[in-house]
């Protein structure tokens, strides 16, 4: 499966493949021609991805084949030990939590998990948590504090699930509680938006000392589709809404909502998952190293101050 704007790239890749096959079959030396085409391919990729519209980035953030939470857990960390259940309502498959190591250091990992195919997507509810998922995350925050383990969260959700049971079980209440609980951590916390950062459902595990985002990931108050449905009464206006919402990594860095943008391989994480995951691993190690000397009090105060600052407004001069 490919995204519409990827077609010229894929066409060129196919052409290069064909030329290679032809050269082999005919035992001809086409190395020069192939090298030219490959250079063109790199330029085309770079240009395409440099100029992506915001809506196109939304599509990359959601692309099939983009690494999911569990892919990161397996690739970036060692010895992942999954821990299930919220001890109250059940076990939410849309959030995977557990213990792991990074660079020899134990930590707690909380990952929102979309499916990698239809079957898994249904099992994972497309990465949309019920209250149980946030309760499970809060249990992990308790564990992290008790044992002094840093917390890494991987954010990738269209949003918290809007359903009857979710509402009855207090979706709003647990999101608020999770925001509060995470803000109170006395250990280092790093959040990485790896795909879709969907509204309150993302922020619930996003109150970290450092908030990182992949180059083509998004983080938004509302999905472009829902925003378009409200503002223009037409979900088909989603591309316009995506532009208006300024939801790309670059936008969010400018608004100081994220601290660091992690570059993806050219062509997007879905074209080279291993390289994307390596980049996240490198960034996580650097961020954890930087926080290592901080006291619990510093971590708590620093995190609070970070979120207390956010917002843009003007002070009105009383004499005006």
């Amino acid at each position, binding site marked *: 499966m490919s995204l519409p704007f990827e077609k010229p790239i894929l066409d060129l890749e196919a052409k290069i493949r064909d030329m290679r096959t032809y050269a082999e079959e005919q035992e001809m030396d086409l190395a020069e021609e192939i090298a030219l085409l490959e250079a063109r391919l790199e330029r085309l990729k770079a240009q395409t991805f440099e100029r992506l519209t915001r809506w196109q980035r939304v599509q990359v953030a959601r692309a099939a084949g983009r690494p999911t939470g569990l892919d990161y857990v397996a690739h970036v960390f060692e010895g992942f030990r999954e821990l299930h259940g919220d001890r109250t309502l059940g076990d939410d498959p849309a959030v995977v939590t557990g213990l792991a190591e990074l660079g020899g250091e134990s930590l707690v990992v909380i990952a929102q998990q979309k499916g990698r195919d239809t079957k898994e997507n249904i099992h994972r509810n497309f990465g949309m948590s019920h209250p149980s998922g946030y309760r499970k995350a809060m249990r992990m925050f308790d564990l992290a504090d008790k044992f002094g383990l840093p917390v890494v969260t991987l954010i990738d959700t269209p949003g918290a699930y809007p359903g009857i049971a979710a509402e*009855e079980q207090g979706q*709003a209440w647990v999101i*608020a509680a999770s925001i509060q609980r995470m*803000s109170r951590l006395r250990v280092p916390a790093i959040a990485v938006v790896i795909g879709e950062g969907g509204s*309150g459902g993302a922020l619930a595990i996003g109150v970290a000392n450092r908030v990182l985002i992949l180059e083509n990931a998004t983080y938004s108050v509302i999905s472009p589709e829902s925003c378009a449905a409200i503002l223009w009464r037409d979900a088909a206006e989603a591309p316009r809404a995506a532009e208006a919402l*300024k939801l790309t990594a670059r*936008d969010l860095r400018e608004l100081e909502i994220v601290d660091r943008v992690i570059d993806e391989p050219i062509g997007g994480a879905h074209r080279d998952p291993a390289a994307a995951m390596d980049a996240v691993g490198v960034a996580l190690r650097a961020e954890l190293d930087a926080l290592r000397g901080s006291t619990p009090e510093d971590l708590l105060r620093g995190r609070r101050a970070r979120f207390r600052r956010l917002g843009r*407004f003007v002070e009105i001069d009383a004499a005006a």
Partner: protein
Amino acid sequence: MALERWFRRSRPTRSDDDTSPAGLWLKCESCSAQIYRKDLVANLYLCPECGHHYRMPVDARIASLADEGTFERWSGRLAPTDPLEFVDTEPYPERMERVQQKQGRPDAIVSGAASLNGEPIALVVMDFFFAGGSMGSVVGEEIARAAERAAAEDRSLVVITASGGARMQEGALSLMQMAKTTVALEELTERRLPFVSVLTDPTTGGVTASFATLGDVILAEPHALICFAGPRVIQQTIKQDLPEGFQRAEFLLKKGMLDDVVPRDRLKEALGTTLRLLRGGAKVSEPEESHVATV
């Protein structure tokens, strides 16, 4: 008072704060009785026949809760900007200017100091008639400042919520107000000062999923719609009818999500009693160094 002039209504309007149809008389949307408008206003915006709770304008709300002459306004010095240069059917600044003129304030919130049955409080009231009470940077900042000032002045915090949720036109900055308001409440927690949240119709989305449901005590008005995702969104998602009374205050009380549902004409008394009792402890234990042990 210069500020008041700055936001002076451009023309006198009758019922900007009023959801009911125009005219001296209106038909109650709940019991269909003919109501004389002045009676509705004099009766705390409750139907004199059936007690149906109409949405209440901010000034009337403050008057109904603050002891007479005690309210001193804090808010009003912060105004929204347009960080995203957001345009939907009109540019965000134009939308704001129009609503500011209509509502006579810079954003969807009023805060101030008051006493309530003698209890010192910071009173925060959200204005649903201002862009649906949506929370952008100004609303978030006013709530945060009110919480911090309440803590500094040894006041309890009372917030009357009414909001469609986070304000789309400020994008992820609005989303971040959920975290900002939450961390600002810590000042009260550290000083063991009460925060009572009163959820009124409607309280939804990012407001419900942040400070509104973090009250030490959470009260709601009868029949108020209180939810994370709105009924229409849920219906579109699950393609089923919703249960009777779903997401209404009484339903949520049964589900264990609220401390009580309190009719408006008893709200002041309920708040006064709650605050007095919460603050009447002998303070036998020092606050824990860390308040993080349990959630």
